[in-house]
């Protein structure tokens, strides 16, 4: 079995990123879109950690990854709070139905 190297991490990250984009573009459920965004952020996180491990700048990369994790959580909190507010009013989290604004 081949040694796991930088490329493997990058491929995983790229796949995650692509999946995230597909999710964001196709899903009409607000929660699903939020999950897609998390995929994007984590793709970037994997990239950074892998580059840090194999590129030599370990400290900077790891610190960056930690910040990504923390801020992704913060973003999810705010996003979910707003989804809650919408849900209370419309009883739905379907983006097709939130059409007060012309969009």
């Amino acid at each position, binding site marked *: 079995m081949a040694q796991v190297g930088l490329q493997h991490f990058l491929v995983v990250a790229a796949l995650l990123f692509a999946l995230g984009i597909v999710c964001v573009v196709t899903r009409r459920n607000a929660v699903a879109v939020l999950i897609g965004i998390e995929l994007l952020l984590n793709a970037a996180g994997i990239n*950074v950690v892998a580059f840090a491990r194999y590129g030599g700048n370990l400290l900077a990369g790891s610190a960056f990854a930690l910040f990504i994790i923390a*801020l992704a959580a913060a973003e999810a909190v705010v996003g979910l709070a707003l989804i809650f507010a919408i849900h209370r009013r419309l009883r739905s989290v379907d983006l097709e139905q939130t059409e007060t604004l012309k969009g």
Partner: protein
Amino acid sequence: MPTLESLPHVLPEVALAVTAAALFVLEALWQPRGRARRVGFPLLALGGLLAALLFLVASPSSAEPRFFGGLLTQDPFSTFVRGVAIVATALAVGLALGSPSLPSNRRVEYHGLLVLLALGMCLLSSAGHLLMIYVAIEIVSLTSYLLAGFDDRGGRSAEAGLKYVLFGGVASGVMLFGFSLLFGLFGDLSLSGLGQALAHSTTLSTGAGRWATLLALVFVLAGLGFKIAAVPFHMWCPDVYEGAPTPFTALLSVGPKAAGFAVLLRFGTGLWPELATDAAAATSALPWLLLLGVMSTVTMTVGNLAAIWQDNLKRLLAYSSIAHAGYMLMGVVAGGREGPGAVAVYLAVYLIMNIGAFAVVSAVDRSAHSEDIGVYHGLGRRAPLLALAMAVFLLSLTGLPPTAGFVGKLYLFASLIHHGGFWYVLLAVVGVLNSVVSLYFYARVLRAMFLESAAGEPAPVSLANSAAALAVVLAVPTLALGIFWQPLAAIANFSGSLF
């Protein structure tokens, strides 16, 4: 510069952070009622902002522009943009006084979040490190999402917040992926380090390396383009502007945009230090300027053309703010000393005239409970002073002399043309033609206010509120700076340099 010595240079940010914390803590512990709540907290917020502004003006100059190990970079341009961000926030606090679009029981949170947003904008405009850029953008974004969804009178505001958070999340995700690629390609996170690596690296000599770098830059542009509302990352803008409480929309159209431009400019000069002297040669390997130029053209054209069809003043101003981002991108393309100087002048002018226009919208909204162009019919007769102020703002947004908007455009076009070259002049021509298009929809509002008469018996528009007062006050510099713009020239001269 090591951490402790860096502290005196970030006193404005410290003041903002302390103020925001104080607002949240006081609200939780004390829960004041009545007068203290209505007046006390806005005053506290204003006091904090004023202190930050004073610290900023008095901030010591330093031979070494990088602080906290390169996380923050301070130069005249960032100092100026921090000033713009703080002043814009203060104006938004003023606009919010007595505004019906803010629930009265959550006023304090509103002010706390505003001050936090100001902190984020300040950090963003002096960020010199990818990590700092990301953190600052998230501070600005997270507070903005919450503030956009603040109005609980209808579904509009929460929906605006949700749209904003989803678009914003995608944009920052894409940008972050771009950051990670840059980190991998050049092994550094600070902009200056990236610049050095870019200059000496062999990555760009291979086709694959160049494509990867280009891809990373496009991803980064997506994130920054989202913050300044440039096409094609602008879709959130009209909906969020319309749904958000008007006092916050006024700030949103100016503050984050200013910080976004600061970071865009710094990103450019960080990666290509020679951008300030010879932009074309500096970026010869990568089509950075071409990307920005195309973005500028498309942004102003789409913004102006879409604005023609809007009947809601807030949406109209949203598309107009997209177009103005396109104008300011011209200054980024121009580069050199003149480009950032022109962007700075335009930001100052735009701060005054755009917040002024939103102040008028807010004042009319308080009486008419609508932002539709129909309620502006006959405003010239019902509230002459307010209509006159709006006329000044609209003419200034069009860029007609003798208003400050003309001076701003003059500097932008001049910086572009001074750069020489056919493509630059062509971009300037696109810019002036766009100004003509913009006249069409700004004149629609003028026409509604002065040339049409109101149908039926419209509600009288009261001038006795903070928004109307602010509008009238802001009209004065809009006109005065158009007639005598030496202060703006000083700004151009001062903030032309980035490190």
